[in-house]
């Protein structure tokens, strides 16, 4: 029952478990659901990085949609124009967005609160419009189109493209799960938390606050770049319409709604990003209203769901689940403890202290 103590071994175990789950899920699902799994996967990559930034290092970013755009355009240019293979192109997307992350992060580490939000907001609005300014290279509003990833022949002729895309995105998820899980429990993770909780105390301990914050930005930018690159592979398209301000805002909404600072929250956040628009659209259509009303209704429903969710679960889905699980465990442990009190009197309550 007990898991290995080393972080590395634990992360590997987690990755293997997640791989098995993703594999089974992709086999069991139909083509459209495989595609949604792939969508959810690239959102997860971005949200996991954003969780490190906001949850662990305490910085806010309204500009991660633009970092996704960096990854997506890198992949689209390298695969479309330079005919690179998939894996090196994705690696390049991570590298390029990490470099952009260094630049933005260095500026961001000097800013606090609303100024940081404002600077990253400007980044989110400004960067995608470069695609329109230099439309010769980036294809303008029309975007860049790439060929769908070729399904390897050993998988058989009838292997659905959507499942193959889900697999590719799944491998990306595993890489992020592994990297982030290790980082969170490493010395770097502790430095990030120290800086988040008290910058003065952290610098008295010898930590370079600005450098630690920049590092957090770089990590999250690399994750966003991978997510964006994966988006380009799954949609076979990099176009500015995908990276509008709304994306950056909904990424932030998703980690808050999922549960800030928790890796599981990133999974819930990704599920929300993929499924909520479909649900709101279905609800809007089920009212059989005029097209003009029902076309605008999904956004209104989305807003209502957000408000309701934040009122009901201020700590997000993950927070709500943890509370429910806590209650259940307490009542279970409580009843067991009563039993054990009557026989041996051992104190099982210490399990609860976290």
């Amino acid at each position, binding site marked *: 029952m007990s898991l290995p103590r080393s972080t590395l071994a634990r992360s590997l175990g987690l990755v293997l478990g*997640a791989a098995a789950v993703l594999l089974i*899920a992709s086999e069991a699902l*139909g083509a459209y659901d495989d595609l949604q799994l792939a969508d959810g996967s690239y959102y997860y990559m971005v949200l996991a990085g954003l969780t490190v930034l906001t949850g662990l290092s305490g910085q806010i970013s309204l500009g991660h949609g633009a970092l996704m755009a960096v990854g997506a355009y890198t992949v689209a240019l390298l695969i479309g124009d330079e005919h690179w293979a998939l894996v090196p192109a994705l690696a390049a997307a991570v590298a390029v967005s990490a470099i952009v992350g260094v630049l933005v992060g260095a500026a961001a580490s000097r800013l606090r609160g609303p100024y940081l939000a404002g600077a990253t907001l400007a980044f989110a609005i400004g960067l995608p419009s470069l695609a329109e300014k230099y439309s010769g290279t980036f294809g303008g509003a029309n975007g860049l189109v790439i060929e769908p990833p070729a399904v390897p022949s050993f998988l058989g002729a009838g292997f659905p493209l959507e499942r193959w895309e889900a697999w590719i995105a799944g491998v990306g998820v595993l890489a992020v799960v592994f990297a982030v899980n290790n980082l969170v429990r490493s010395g770097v993770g502790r430095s990030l938390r120290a800086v988040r909780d008290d910058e003065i105390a952290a610098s008295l301990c010898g930590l370079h606050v600005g450098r630690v914050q920049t590092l957090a930005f770089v990590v999250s930018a690399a994750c966003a770049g991978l997510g964006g690159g994966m988006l380009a592979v799954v*949609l076979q*398209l990099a176009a500015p319409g995908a990276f509008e301000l709304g994306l950056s805002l909904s990424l932030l909404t998703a980690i808050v709604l999922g549960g800030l600072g928790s*890796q599981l929250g990133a999974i819930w956040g990704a599920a929300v990003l993929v499924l909520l628009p479909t649900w709101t659209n279905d609800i809007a259509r089920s009212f059989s209203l005029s097209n*003009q009303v029902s076309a605008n209704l999904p956004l209104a429903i989305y807003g209502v769901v957000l408000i309701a969710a934040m009122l009901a679960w201020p700590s997000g889905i993950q927070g709500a689940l943890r509370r429910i*699980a806590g209650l259940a465990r307490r009542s279970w442990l409580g009843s067991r403890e009563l039993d054990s009190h009557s026989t041996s009197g051992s104190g099982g309550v210490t399990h609860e202290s976290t």
Partner: protein
Amino acid sequence: MRAHRYGLRTTGALCALVVAAVVAGCGSSSSSSAPGVTATSITFGTHQPLTGPAAPGYSEIAPASQAFFDYLNAQGGIYGRKIHLIIKNDEYNPTQTVSVVHELVLKDNVFGIFEGLGTPTHTKVVGFLNSSKVPDMFVASGCPCWDKGSTQPYTFGWQPNYTIEGKILGQYIKQHFAGKKVGVFYQDDDFGNGGLAGIEDEVPASQIVSKQPYQSGTTNVAPQISAIKAAGAEVLVDFTVPIYTALGQLTSFTLGYKPQLVVSSVGIDPTTVGGLLKTYSKGKAGTELIEGAITDGYLPSVAETSNPWIALFKRIKDQYDPGAPLDGNVEYGMATAYTLAQALELAGKSLTREKLVEAVNEKGAELSGPGLVPFRYSKTEHGGYGGAEIGQVRAGKIVLFGGPLLTEPTAGSPITPYTKAQPSPPSSGVSVP
């Protein structure tokens, strides 16, 4: 103790993944041998800009098609099959188009896609639709990129290829505004570029003094219009969607620039552009800003109330889509729906995706209906109408004159008059050759 806690956390993580995967799988994923078609129904899907920059005007198209199908369905449909249309909003955003078309094909299991709207949008799904062998009928765009029947056998255009429109407008400019300086204001994609190619094919290069592209989604076109004005253009050619025709004219008005306007059929519908002008100027301007504009049309003008097709469309609109105005967009939606119904009739009772494609390949060029000119359909050529008639905005309405013209998009091919008379609509259903 530590291990126990981590154990719980890991188990929690795996549980979350499973739940997320299962929740993702909640949609229907049934597949049948002939998707979207039963003995009593046939379902098409479409992607339309119901909101966003292209929505004004264009959002009326799919509901008008729906109204025409309702009219046919009330008469028993085609071979007893009622035609259903699932309309999805892609906001004229290519990324959204990819999502909604995947949803229509893979989740809603539609038989085909019908009048998917827009060049920048639809180009992103043509590859997917053709590799999935899904009929992609009558794209609502005149991009030359739909014409390639041999490489994209499932995709069909419908309206005239933009280069054909550009050539016909270009010939008019050459004949009637000879020697005058011409400026072109165009959307920076295959729509604008296709139209520009047609203009350049007819108008001498020395006469074109300025070519200014705009990006769909931009809100300021003053730089482009100022540049065209500064170049001294006396004729302004617009390859624009309605909202940019309106923005361009308001900007010209503010700059005190009054060139002869020439606008492709895509961006001139007076009801739409007039409405936009009114909204943007807070009621101060209207159709007078496009009065006298030269344009072209391949369907009878909605102002011709005596035309039997316009009378039919008005009757259908009043009964099934009463909230909509009778404008060029509604006419477009109904006319396309008529062509789809004809194609379904031609494809026969035992309908398959391949049979629908074959029917248009073999008989599409013989189809007649509300169009003023014939289609160009063949096995290798999937472009729509082969020409148009010149028109002008007079008293806020489009008046066509001079008779329909036919041409090919290839550079240098001649423009010839087309004289065959338009047939009247059948008293019920559709008529096929």
